[in-house]
């Protein structure tokens, strides 16, 4: 298998396009297709999905030709990926409940772990400075509707919805 794929980056990109195209086309057929004159919501996405799958297949096949040989896919740096994306996800979910002060400190401190030269003390100072700065500029100055402090009322609202 390995020696068959002459250009791994192209090959896997092709497979990715093929899979995504198939996904979009597959879900697309569940919408009304309609006719060429009166296209339904499924018409254009279905055509595009099939087109994407076709291109994906072509890219993957072309990657098997020796003429197009290229370097292998570099390893993923999971460590950095996790420490950068994880705090963003927590920020998104937690902002309305915990407020920007806590979530801001969390983003700066947790994401700093992605760096190989992590040192706690300067990072804490940085986090405090940035949160103060953001509170003044974005919430105080630009009046963006971002909650600053924790608001556990959100839970009560949720509970009220359930009942």
């Amino acid at each position, binding site marked *: 298998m390995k020696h068959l794929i002459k250009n791994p980056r192209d090959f896997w*990109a092709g497979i990715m396009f093929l899979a995504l195209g198939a996904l979009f086309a597959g879900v697309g057929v569940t919408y009304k297709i309609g006719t060429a*004159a009166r296209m339904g919501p499924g018409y254009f996405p279905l055509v595009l999905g099939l087109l*994407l799958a076709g291109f994906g297949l072509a890219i993957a096949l072309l990657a098997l030709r020796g003429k197009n040989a290229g370097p292998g896919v570099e390893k993923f740096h999971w460590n950095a990926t996790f420490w950068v994306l994880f705090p963003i996800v927590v920020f*998104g979910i937690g*902002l309305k409940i915990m407020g920007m002060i806590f979530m801001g400190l969390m983003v700066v401190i947790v994401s700093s772990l992605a760096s190989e030269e992590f040192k706690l003390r300067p990072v804490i100072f940085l986090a405090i400075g940035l949160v103060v700065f953001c509170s003044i500029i974005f919430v105080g100055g630009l009046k963006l509707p971002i909650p600053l402090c924790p608001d556990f009322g959100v839970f009560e609202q949720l509970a009220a919805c359930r009942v």
Partner: protein
Amino acid sequence: MELLANLQLGFGVALAGTNILYCFIGVLLGTLIGVLPGIGPVATIAMLLPATFVLPPVSALIMLAGIYYGASYGGSTTAILVNLPGEVSSVVTCLDGHQMAKQGHAGKALGVAALSSFFAGTVSTLLVAAFAPPLAELALKFGPADYFSLMVLGLLAAVVLAHGSLIKAVAMIILGLLVGLIGTDVNSGVARYNFGLPELIDGVGIGPIAMGVFGFGEIIRNLEHGQKREVTTSRVTGLLPNWQDIKQSTWPTIRGTMLGSFLGILPGGGPILGSFSAYTLEKKLAKDPSRFGKGAIEGVAAPESANNAAAQTSFIPLLTLGIPSNPVMALMIGAMIIHGIQPGPQIMTAKPDLFWGMIASMWVGNFLLVVLNLPLIGMWVKLLTLEYRFLYPAILLFCCIGVYSINNAWMDVLLAAGFGFIGYLFGKLDCEAAPLLLGFVLGPMMEENLRRAMLLSRGDPMVFVTRPISATLLVISVILLVIVLMPAIRSKREEAFVEDA
């Protein structure tokens, strides 16, 4: 002399007290963030987009345009002093600019970059003012079929002129078009591809995509490679070039401006292609090409003027056709829609103050850049010495707040994180992300125009070849494709982008 009257109207708007202030703030913020290594204009604009929400539309767009010029100029400063391009279009500036800095001529390189950019900005502002109106008038004659073909041409041209694999770029466009279709279909009211999530009924915003792919994805990539930076911290002095330097850089600046202005109008051209081609051209014309890469002043003047000229003229297709020619313009379309302005040829007649105000603000922005940057260069140099380990958490926090504030939606933050991973994956697979963003913006417009065209023709696809405008556009698309696929041109195209980079 209509042009003069229009420009007068424009300058009236752009120089009005608050607008010039916002232009100034935009240029300042743009430069501030653009100077930071590893963050390009797309992420900068996406990040600062919410900051413009409180403003009236004209001021907001003037400020965003200011951010764009500022970010581009900041990128060049970084390129010269750190040898780390903040964006692709300053890659070539690195080559000679950083060499000049190493030889102790950092000030001169920065001064030439600023002055040649200013010259290019002045000329291209006039070009935009002269060419936008007739184009907008022509665009008003376009029917749905013509628009569809125009978008096909625009997207194709974008991949032809962009670098990297052609076929993968086309696939990325199609993927972008599909992602653009997520959300409620305007004609039938059916929610598509939302996978049962009510948060996706309005579709995916341009903010999360731009921020994820161009911001978060980029940060992960920078962390992975570790930042090897050689900052030329020695004091930057002698910003003003001497007579000899001016003589040496005059023609390269003029040629760079011309080339950049032309390439900027073409979809997909934009600043990147402009700076690369201008550099190549100068090297070809030079009496002693071996000086290039070793601190030739022409190697700074030409690409800097070209990329600034192209940045300006890429507003032409945006303002007249409502079609973005590069990711930054795609973001500007998003910003216009957020502010309730439908981009397209009707802007010029319906909102002349906005149209001419923006054009005039281009010149004002460029002027402010020179005034601002020459004295503030010391501050930018200080910023550059900041370590990346302190820089990226700050960028992340600003991005989180920015992306949340666009719609006050927590889902957008999660989407941005998701697109961050996707962007990182694209990088691993050598897939250029810019075409994705263009496709994303054009997806809904393309579907809408295709549907209307086919409805009018009662399902006959011949409408695309029988209407003269549409047929012409499609013929150009085909010619473009054929040219690119010709083996001789193909190798030339690949050559154009590997220029010492």
